[in-house]
């Protein structure tokens, strides 16, 4: 295994385990529990026409499953399936039983939606409490949540997780970095929760304000929502003088809380009593050997409102099953090392090039020739969308041209939820490709070479 541990104290740091019974269950018991829950899940899915038809077609019922590995008999679910079932076709409970609806970004302007019952929310809070505690959150702490709150799941899971632990939440939400730093300086939070790149922005901004970022009260960071590297971890830990922990999750199966690191920081512990995770070759859909990279496919065993059967995450990672020094028995996953589709994660927001295209189509006269350039000039992702100028949209008046840029930028924000710089470029200056056009130039370095 190539994941290195920088933190010298990591071997000695020992945090309590939030739910020892669930997190240190002997493997045979865990697998028996998974099988039981998988069978229950298959029975529950009989209420969802989309799943029922497929299961009937394959003649699969709870009885067909004799071990968790039998999950391979079951059909996959994809993002497209969710989109086709808009808005809530995959619901397994009556609508009245829903306590919450969140969205996740879709490949077009329409997000896909996920729903939660009150019990799902309880489970979610609990799963977040588990990884927060495994990375050092204690009831006496104050935690600043600098993730966005809203339709996307980012901030909420962690907010409720902190609340569950009994620590103090500062729901700072995303943005206004100077204000974040003032709050931090004044209210003494020990824990920071945001995307890893935002942690570096906070450090940069603190220096700009003439402050030493290492002197900020933060001691622990829980970072997720976008891919990052071990180099970035070292940077963050060095610049802010904190311990930085990684966590993973996606709205489609619950949000943050699928997995998170322990002080050993040798991969993220998957909450296997709630998620059955496979690692498959994206081409053949056969399992890869342990420790080899493959696409994560996740089944949410306990979700009531909207269970996911073998959801294809398109995230590439590796699984490690040997026991961990921390005492947890759960399988660990590596950092996400890439995608099997063209989705980009920009400042923690999932963006598909097709969304940018859709935004351009909303502005009359723009051509389909565009290029998305993603870079990280200092710490924050920056997106430039280059759009070719065209006689229909060109004006000799500067104010009109600037209004055009703003209009395109606004449409991109509406459709994709990100702020992009729009660069108008001369005709034919964007390279034409035969066959599939290259729409994205990603200049960021987001994956560990060693992985």
């Amino acid at each position, binding site marked *: 295994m190539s994941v290195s541990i920088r933190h010298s104290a990591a071997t000695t740091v020992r945090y309590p385990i939030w739910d020892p019974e669930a997190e240190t269950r002997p493997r045979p018991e865990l697998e028996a529990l998974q099988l039981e829950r998988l069978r229950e899940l298959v029975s529950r899915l009989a209420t969802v026409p989309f799943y029922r038809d497929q299961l009937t077609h394959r003649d699969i019922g709870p009885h067909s499953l004799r071990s968790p590995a039998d999950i391979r008999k079951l059909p996959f679910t994809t993002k497209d399936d969710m989109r086709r079932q808009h808005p809530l076709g995959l619901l397994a409970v009556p609508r009245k039983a829903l306590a919450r609806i969140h969205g996740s970004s879709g490949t077009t302007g329409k997000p896909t939606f996920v729903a939660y019952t009150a019990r799902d929310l309880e489970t979610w809070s609990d799963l977040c409490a588990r990884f927060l505690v495994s990375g050092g959150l204690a009831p006496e702490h104050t935690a600043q949540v600098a993730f966005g709150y809203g339709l996307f799941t980012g901030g909420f899971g962690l907010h409720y997780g902190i609340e569950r632990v009994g620590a103090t939440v500062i729901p700072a939400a995303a943005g206004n970095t100077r204000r974040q730093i003032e709050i931090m300086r004044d209210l003494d939070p020990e824990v920071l929760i945001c995307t890893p790149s935002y942690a570096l922005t906070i450090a940069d901004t603190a220096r700009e304000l003439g402050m030493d970022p290492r002197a900020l009260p933060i001691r622990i960071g829980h970072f997720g929502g976008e891919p990052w590297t071990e180099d970035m971890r070292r940077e963050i830990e060095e610049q802010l003088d904190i311990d930085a922990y990684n966590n993973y999750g996606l709205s489609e199966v619950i949000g943050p809380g699928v997995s998170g690191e322990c002080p050993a920081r040798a991969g993220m512990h998957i909450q296997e009593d709630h998620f059955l995770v496979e690692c498959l070759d994206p081409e053949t859909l056969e399992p890869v050997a342990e420790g080899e990279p493959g696409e994560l496919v996740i089944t949410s065993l306990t979700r009531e409102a909207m269970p996911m059967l073998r959801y294809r995450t398109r995230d590439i990672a590796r699984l490690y099953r040997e026991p961990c020094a921390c005492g947890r028995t759960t399988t660990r996953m590596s950092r996400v090392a890439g995608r099997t589709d063209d989705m980009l994660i920009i400042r923690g927001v999932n963006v598909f090039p097709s969304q940018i295209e859709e935004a351009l189509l909303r502005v009359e006269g723009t051509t389909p020739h565009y290029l998305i350039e993603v870079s990280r000039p200092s710490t924050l992702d920056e997106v430039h969308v280059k759009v070719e*100028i*065209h*006689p229909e949209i*060109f*004006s*000799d*008046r*500067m104010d009109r*041209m*600037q209004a055009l*840029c703003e209009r395109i930028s606004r449409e991109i924000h509406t459709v994709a939820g990100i702020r992009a710089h729009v*660069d*108008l*470029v*001369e*005709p*034919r*200056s964007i390279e034409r490709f035969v066959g599939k056009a290259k729409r994205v130039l990603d200049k960021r370095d987001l994956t560990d070479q060693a992985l």
Partner: protein
Amino acid sequence: MKLQQLSLFLENRPGRLGAPLEAIAAEGINILTLSLADTAQFGILRLIVREWDKAKRVLEEAGWVVNLTEVVAVDLLDRPGGLAQALKILEGANLNIEYMYAFSLRRGDKAILIFRFEDPDRAIQVLLDKGLHVVDGDELMSFVS
């Protein structure tokens, strides 16, 4: 009385301004005046040339996005107060100027103002009524030949 002005979209990076000017120079087309408005990212080059239709064709063939705009040229004595007087007249008539630029002719005492109006026809009427000298295309060319 209206003049045809060409405007070009240019990216704001080194060397972009030279290329279109060379392209029309190569065809022997004379530039009477030009103005450049720019932001950090792009610019709009506005040109008054002798043979605007030919210039437009040349530029378009070379791949530029070119617009044609009707502008109004006003001849003022190149002395203090000339511009202020003209602007006062326009303001009094409630005429909206989208933008303007000026140039002086070396051999005389003339200063030419180029105006882009929302309503150029009404502007010309007002200017003529107030006794100002609106310059048409042929006359403008005669100043520089």
